């Protein structure tokens, strides 16, 4: 079965960015974690086996101290320069 990729866009409380970043890096399903400047503070890309697993993962992320809001975008289709 195809894996499900998703982006979780996160806003955090002031002063908690480093803590949230470190906690996110412990998540096995996270493939990219970017600390960003702009509308969101952190962008996480995750790869999971199902939407059910994605739901559980976002629940887990919500429990990290310092996170104010998350917006999840499920990838429906993707084109990558690295795919051959």
């Amino acid at each position: 079965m195809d894996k499900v990729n998703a982006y979780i866009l996160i806003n955090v409380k002031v002063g908690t960015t480093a803590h949230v970043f470190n906690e996110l890096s412990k998540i096995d399903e996270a493939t990219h974690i970017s600390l960003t400047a702009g509308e969101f503070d952190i962008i996480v890309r995750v790869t999971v086996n199902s939407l059910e697993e994605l739901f559980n993962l976002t629940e887990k992320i919500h429990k990290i101290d310092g996170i104010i809001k998350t917006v999840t975008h499920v990838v429906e289709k993707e084109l990558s320069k690295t795919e051959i």
Partner: protein
Amino acid sequence: MVATDVWITVRVVPNPYVFALCSFMVGSIVHVLILIIATAKMNRKKFIGTVLDPNFLGFFIPKNGLLKHLILAGLGNAISTISYVYVVALTQDPSSVLPFTNLVTAYLIIGDLMIEKEKPVLIEVHAFFMIILGAILVSLSRGIVNLAGLALVLGPMNLGTFLYVYEQKKARTIKIRGKRYDSINLRVWSLLFTTIFIIIMAPLIVGPESIVLSIVISIAHFFVIALDMLLAFFAYVLYIRALGMGKMSVVNALASVSVVISLPLTLILAWVFPDVYILPDLSGVFGLVRIIGIIFVFLGMTALSFSEVVGYILIKSKPGSGSRLLKKLSTIKGVEYVSATAGKYDYIVRIKIRSLGKAYENVLQKIIKIEEIIDFVWISVLKEWELV
């Protein structure tokens, strides 16, 4: 790793051709054993190999395009290795020409241009040449440069290394079951192909008896050579993982830093084992040249680390834009991947580009001209963690 290489060539196998054959024959056995161990399960979900590379998929037989890349990587490595031993055998003082292997970074810049079809920015060119020049200065010796040896280094040896790195990079970017081809399988298979090519090439130069001699020496000194190849395995796996992250030229230029790190290590080893390791010459003007070389390497590295820009563009599009917009976005230079998403934004585009100027010129200027885009937001990446 270089320190153990020196130890073996001085104490165990003085003939460079036989050393190469022994290393790859023993290395093949060691690498296959590592692959078997790495394929064992740590728990229900994970292989032991995932500790070293999270993308590890277990034992995987390469096919089609991947197989082609691995065979070509093996060929490049074999050409480079045979050229290296030929230089060592040909020149009385190989250390006078071997520093020029650092120039392979210049070849890799051209390789990156071939892949990305884009000119490097000025700061990158400055940084590369600072690192290369620094590495050459650090490893220079007082020996007279042998022109035939130099031609071998600049020709087949560096071209072989270029082919090896280029094909490994191509293999590393192939995705299998949604993940990048892992560095453990890549290293093991490319080494096996290298061994095959070396077994074919070496006897043509030094005669078929070299095979028999290599087998005898490999059996007699198996554990010493196996230790050397074990270290090589870990060094190359980390190198291949780094290749998955960035440009070949950048990774190779950064790997040149090892010449700086090897300097204090050689000093310690030469003090402990004076009969095996030669004390690096740090006296007078020569010492000053080496210090200048170290400064160059660090300045180059610092400049390089500030040159790249990574960001995301979050896009809202007109209804019905579909795969047409997906394709338009993916053709923009600097775009790593485009994801059509379900959520507040319709597309998330990941950008990796050489400078902010190029991000404006190559990406934003193109985005604003796409009529299907209603609105977009640029988000700069300040720090990143990536599973590679």
